Structures are given as structure tokens and as C-alpha cells.
């Protein structure tokens, strides 16, 4: 059969006017919105006293100083694996929640969802609920419509500026930047970041909305591979609802669904959940609230639309009780995700607790391997790096031990074996070791040596092994 309908290769966005909904999931989403937005906006303003030499911002990504501060944790560039580990945990956590509750991340806590929710709240406050907004949309442009639109965009813009503005506070001292912003003396990179994030927030939250989830986000494309028949997802119990039809008295052959479109009207993605599990659904659960309100009114049991696993269908149809929540949760896949997640978490915690305050690296200079001095003694040169992670200057004494103990540190002239490392910094020092003429170390190919660094005050010491090269005769 040839369809004569001429279709275009491109389609414009169909506007969506989500209706206000009340209920348990909506309340839960309000709470999450307040919680996540508070974290985002207020975290940079939390102070944390680190003493005089270090910044007092609890969470700070200091790109120029190459440090990442998070409360009592301070991450140096060579410890970036902590951040990598956290990102891996976030990824596996996402897998875990997806196989547990479907796209719970998308529906509740993804920034796109949260900000769109906030923007829709503003839209509803300015322009009214669904029907009023549809009417306004259809109306030709007049003063009233223009004023309402401009008011809405202005409030969106303010939110967007605040969003972009909050982002830069994570990268520098927040109160100082705030006062700089007021006096308009901020570096261009800060203004550029604010402008970019303002633009994306305004466009993504106000106009792109579900288009971001459907066309721009890679996550909906791969999330189905984390889910199986045990995963709890939002679905329509069509075996209960069909055949759907308008509610009429004493008409018993119809299902529970009265085709009132409440679930469609509240959907921020503009889909019909009754068509089954679909890529556009972000599992925000607002249709559950909408449908339950209707079920309440017509006196039918709740959860015609609700969370269930695909394997519950058979049991429910045959009248058996569905699987318990534990049956859905304790599956091999979920336990495996949890174990991996926990393992990485414990490994990171362990690494954090054994993280030393002082680290040392010794790099023998190999061009040349050795220097013959005028008295015939043999000298090796090393580059020593001391990492002092404490907030105060530390002074260390350097010693070298070796099995034949003729190798000595050159402390003549400007060279000294006392090293003082300023707070929170790395000190690089050249160390010259000399073995006297004809001593064993000068004559054999390689001698194993150990550098010891003693903290003069705390008596703590660490070591690093290296080799001393002699003239191989």
C-alpha cells in the first residue's frame, strides 16, 4: 500500500504545556529540587578554616594553584585518581539506579530536569496553568501577551544569570569574586563562563527542554542496556486499563482507564505513557500522581500507572500478587553494581586515610650518569622533590644510607642537607652525592642507596630508594 501522505524530513517542535499536578511524587520532586538547587547555589559559600596559608572555601577548584579542596580533603594534581575514582563511582551509581528504578536520574535529579521544572514553575506562575498557556499561545500578539512573555523571559534570564554566576564561584574565592562582580572588575574568563552558562541555561531550560533529552543527551540511548524485566519502571497497566473509554454509569465492559488524558497533560516530555515504555520517557512519575488523583475520584484502585517491573505483568494478569520489592532489588546485576561501587568507594576511602602529608621522589640525573672530580672521586647528581601537604613550613634533614657507607652528601658551599619546604608546596632540590676515589661505590657499577628525609620537628621520616653509579672498571 502506498501512502500518499507527503512527509517532511524535518519537523518543528510541538510545544508542550505541562499541567500542574499534586501528589506524592510531585512533593518528592519539589524536595529534590530544593535540595539540589541549594547544593548548587550555596556550596561555594560554605567556609572551612584551613589556617592562614590556604583558602578558606570548603569546596574550591583552584585551577591556577592546581589544587582541589573539599572540606578537609585537599587533592594535588598527582592524586587526581581520587577524582577519576569519584567519576567512576558516579558512573556505576548511575548504572545501579537505572537498573533499580529505570531512569530515576533523568526524572528526579538531572540538572536539565531540575532547571526545566523550575522554568515551568515560573511559566505557570506568570502565564497560568495549561489551559491558560495554550490559550495565550494561540492568541495573536498583543500588549497583554507581550508583557506576559517578557516578564517570563526576564525571570528566566535572572535565574540563568544566577546559575551561570554560581558556577564561577566554585573556581575562586566566592566572596571576593562577588564583590569584584559588583564592581565589575572580574577577569574575562569569569565573564565568559557566566555568559556561556547563562545562555545555555536560558535556551535549554526555556526553549529546548525535552529536545535536550531526546536529541542531545546520549544517556537515553544507552540506558536500556542497564534495565531488564526486574527493573522498576513507570508503566501503564494496560491489562487493567484497556479497553479504555469514557466513564459511564453501569458500563462494566470497559477497563479502568477513562481516557481522561490527565497523564498526557502533565507529562513534561509530551508523550503518552499508555503507549508503553519509550525512549522519550524520563521517569519523572508525574503521570502516576495525575492518574492516582483520577482513580481516587472515580473510586478505582491506585496505580493504574505506577512503578512495576516488566515481569510483574504475567503474575498480575493471572491474579497473583506481584513480586516483592526485594525480588526486584536483589538481582545479580544490581548486587554486582553495588559491589563494584562499594569496592571502589572503600578503596578510595582507604587511599584517603593512608595519604601521606609528605611525599618524596628521587630522580637520578642520567646525563651524565656520573662525574669524575679532579681528586678522582665520583659524583652522582639527583633531583629530589619534596611535597609538603601541611599548612605550615616544614624543615627536613636529608641523609643517605648505603651498605658500604662511603657515599656522602656534598654540603660544601651553597649545598646543604637541610631543606625547608614552604606550606602546601613542592620543593625541588639538586643533591650531589660523592664517593671517594677508589672506594667500592666509585668502582662498582651500581650501589643501592636510600635517601632518608627526617622532619626535624615531628621526627617523622620517609625514604626513597635509588642507585649510585660508579665507574665500571
Amino acid at each position: 500500500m502506498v501512502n500518499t501522505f507527503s512527509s517532511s524530513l524535518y519537523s518543528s517542535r510541538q510545544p508542550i504545556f505541562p499541567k500542574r499536578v499534586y501528589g506524592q511524587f510531585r512533593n518528592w520532586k519539589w524536595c529534590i529540587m530544593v535540595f539540589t538547587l541549594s547544593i548548587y547555589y550555596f556550596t561555594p559559600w560554605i567556609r572551612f578554616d584551613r589556617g592562614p596559608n590556604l583558602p578558606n572555601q570548603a569546596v574550591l577548584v583552584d585551577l591556577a594553584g592546581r589544587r582541589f579542596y573539599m572540606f578537609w580533603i585537599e587533592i594535588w594534581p598527582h592524586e587526581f585518581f581520587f577524582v577519576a575514582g569519584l567519576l567512576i563511582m558516579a558512573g556505576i551509581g548511575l548504572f545501579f539506579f537505572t537498573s533499580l528504578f529505570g531512569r530515576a536520574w533523568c526524572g528526579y535529579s538531572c540538572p536539565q530536569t531540575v532547571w526545566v521544572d523550575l522554568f515551568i514553575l515560573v511559566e505557570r506562575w506568570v502565564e497560568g496553568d495549561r489551559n491558560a498557556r495554550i490559550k495565550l499561545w494561540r492568541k495573536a500578539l498583543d500588549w497583554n501577551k507581550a508583557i506576559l512573555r517578557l516578564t517570563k523571559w526576564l525571570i528566566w534570564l535572572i535565574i540563568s544569570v544566577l546559575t551561570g554566576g554560581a558556577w564561577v564561584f566554585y573556581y575562586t574565592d566566592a566572596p571576593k569574586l562577588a564583590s569584584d562582580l559588583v564592581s565589575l572588575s572580574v577577569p574575562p574568563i569569569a565573564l565568559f563562563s557566566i555568559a556561556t552558562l547563562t545562555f545555555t541555561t536560558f535556551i535549554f531550560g526555556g526553549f529546548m527542554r525535552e529536545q535536550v533529552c531526546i536529541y542531545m543527551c546520549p544517556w537515553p540511548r544507552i540506558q536500556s542496556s542497564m534495565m531488564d524485566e526486574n527493573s522498576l519502571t513507570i508503566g501503564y497497566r494496560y491489562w487493567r486499563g484497556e479497553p479504555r473509554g469514557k466513564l459511564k454509569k453501569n458500563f462494566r465492559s470497559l477497563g479502568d482507564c477513562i481516557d481522561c488524558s490527565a497523564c498526557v497533560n502533565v507529562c513534561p516530555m509530551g508523550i503518552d505513557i499508555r503507549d508503553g515504555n519509550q525512549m522519550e520517557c524520563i521517569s519523572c512519575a508525574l503521570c502516576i500522581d495525575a492518574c492516582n488523583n483520577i482513580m481516587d475520584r472515580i473510586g478505582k484502585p491506585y496505580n493504574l500507572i505506577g512503578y512495576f517491573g516488566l515481569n510483574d505483568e504475567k503474575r498480575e494478569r493471572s491474579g497473583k500478587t506481584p513480586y516483592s520489592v526485594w525480588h526486584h532489588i536483589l538481582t545479580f546485576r544490581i548486587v554486582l553494581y553495588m559491589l563494584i561501587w562499594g569496592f571502589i568507594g572503600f578503596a578510595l576511602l582507604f587511599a584517603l586515610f593512608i595519604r601521606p602529608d609528605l611525599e618524596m621522589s628521587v630522580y637520578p640525573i642520567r646525563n651524565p650518569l656520573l662525574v669524575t672530580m679532579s681528586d678522582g672521586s665520583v659524583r652522582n647528581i639527583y633531583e629530589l622533590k619534596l611535597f609538603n601537604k601541611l599548612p605550615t613550613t616544614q624543615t627536613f634533614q636529608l641523609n643517605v644510607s648505603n651498605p658500604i657507607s662511603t657515599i656522602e652528601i656534598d654540603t660544601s658551599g651553597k649545598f646543604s642537607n637541610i631543606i625547608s619546604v614552604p606550606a602546601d608546596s613542592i620543593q625541588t632540590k639538586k643533591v650531589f652525592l660523592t664517593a671517594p676515589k677508589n672506594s667500592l661505590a666509585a668502582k662498582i657499577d651500581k650501589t643501592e642507596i636510600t635517601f632518608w628525609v627526617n622532619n626535624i620537628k615531628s621526627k617523622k621520616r620517609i625514604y626513597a630508594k635509588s642507585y649510585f653509579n660508579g665507574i665500571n672498571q
Partner: protein
Amino acid sequence: MKNNSDQKNKREHSWDGIEEYNNPLPRWWLWTFYITIFWSLVYIVIYPSIPFINLASQGLIGYDSRKSLEQEIDKHNKINSEIIDSIKNNSLYYILNDNTLTQFANSGGAALFRTFCSQCHGAGAAGSKGYPNLLDDDWLWGGDVESIYQTILHGIRSDKDDETRYSEMPQFKDILEKNQIQTLTEYVLFLSQKDSNQLNFSLEGQQLFQENCIGCHGENGLGNSEFGAPNLTDKIWLYGGNKKSIQNTINYSHFGMMPAWDGRLDDVQIKQLAIYVFLLGGGNYSKAQQ
């Protein structure tokens, strides 16, 4: 999924009953694509882009990567101007007593050394036969920081600089008999290995040495950095320390040449190089400590 069953979402064609769904792209996507094309045109116009035979098109805003590099260098020179001025206006000993200045000079010197000196002295400053090792404590023309500065500034036997360090050892093949040179070689070898007591010296050799060599190398063969005369008693030989090499040196003599850097590098750069070479490990501190 929901749309797939709708008839109207199928394309209008059908081949042997095989049909195709129509999943239209969003129109904004198309516009984004057009905007990127437009942006590339803007880019072509304002930046250098289209290659011609000699030059590329210059662009409207006159961007030039070399110019931007120069600006970048100028910016950093400006940031460091205080420290650079301080190096310019103070003595080498003053710089060595100031940690910040020393560190700055040392790092700058390291970069300069790799650019201008490593061709002869090696990237690690270890030198090779005929090119002095700068890591050891043996210096032909003095190892204190001021002597090193002088050497870099005026070079050694440089024909471009009147104040260059100059000395010339005679070729003894024209002065002494073959067997005398043999004897003298053995005496010089004895000088450098005195402490091992393995060689006896001949009085004849000692006499030859005193007649011909002490003018520059000193009575005990300790050398003299005034004339760049090497110390013959130490373990370091620029042209080899075995019998054959020493005999060769006495017969034909050697004198290396180092260019004068005055005029090619500015004073701050030469000072930085001097500090760097001095701190390589062999620098002579006896003067610096005063």
C-alpha cells in the same frame, strides 16, 4: 515506539511491500547546521585561511600567531621585569645570596644553555673530548662565578672579541727530541698519578718539565687559570689522560675555541648562564662566601 504504528509516519514509497518510517529531524538541528556553515564563512573572512602561493589570505582582524607569541613573551617579560631589572643591576654574588633571584636565573640559564651551549658542552653539560665537562670542579679559566661570566662574555680564543681569553701552548715536536718528549710524557703521567705510588719519576723528566712547562703549568704542575693552563695533577684530562694522548698533546698541542657571547646575548642572559653553569655542581665557592 508509539509513533511507529501510525500510518502517517511512513514515507510515501513502498518497494515490494518494504516501507520506511519517517523519523524527521528537529528543524532547529537543521538551523544549527546552517549556523555552523555560516560561522565557518565568518572564520574564513576574519582569520588567515585561504592559502595562496606566497602567503595565505590575511583576514580582517589581522591575527598573526607569531605576533601573538611575541605579545605573550612581552607580557611575561613585563611580569618579570622587576626580577630581570634586579639581575641586571646587581652583582653575581648578590644574586647568589638571594634565593628568588638565584632560582629565576638558574631556570632561565638552563633554557639558554640548552639553546646556545648544548651543541658543544652537551645537554647535560658533561662535555666530551675537547669540550670541557662543566659538572666537575676543574676549571681551565677559573670556576668562580665571575670568571665563568667573563669566559661566557668574551669567549676563549675568539677572533671576534679583543678581550677574549687567550693562550697558546707551543708544539713541542719542533722544540724537543723524540726521546725527550717520551721522558716528559712519563713525568706528566707521574704527576697525575703521584698518589698511587705506582710510577717512579725520572730526574731527566723533571728537569725537562722545569725547563719547558713550569712557565704556564707551574712548578708542581698545578696549572694556572690566568693563562688557562690546565692542572696536570688532577684526574681530569680534556684531551685524554693516557700516555698516547698526553704525548700527542705535547707534540702538537691543543687549543679549543669558544665564541664570545657578548653582543649575541644580553647581559641579563649571560648572567643567568653564569649562575646556571656555576650551580651545576663544580662551581668554586671560596670567593662567593665572602
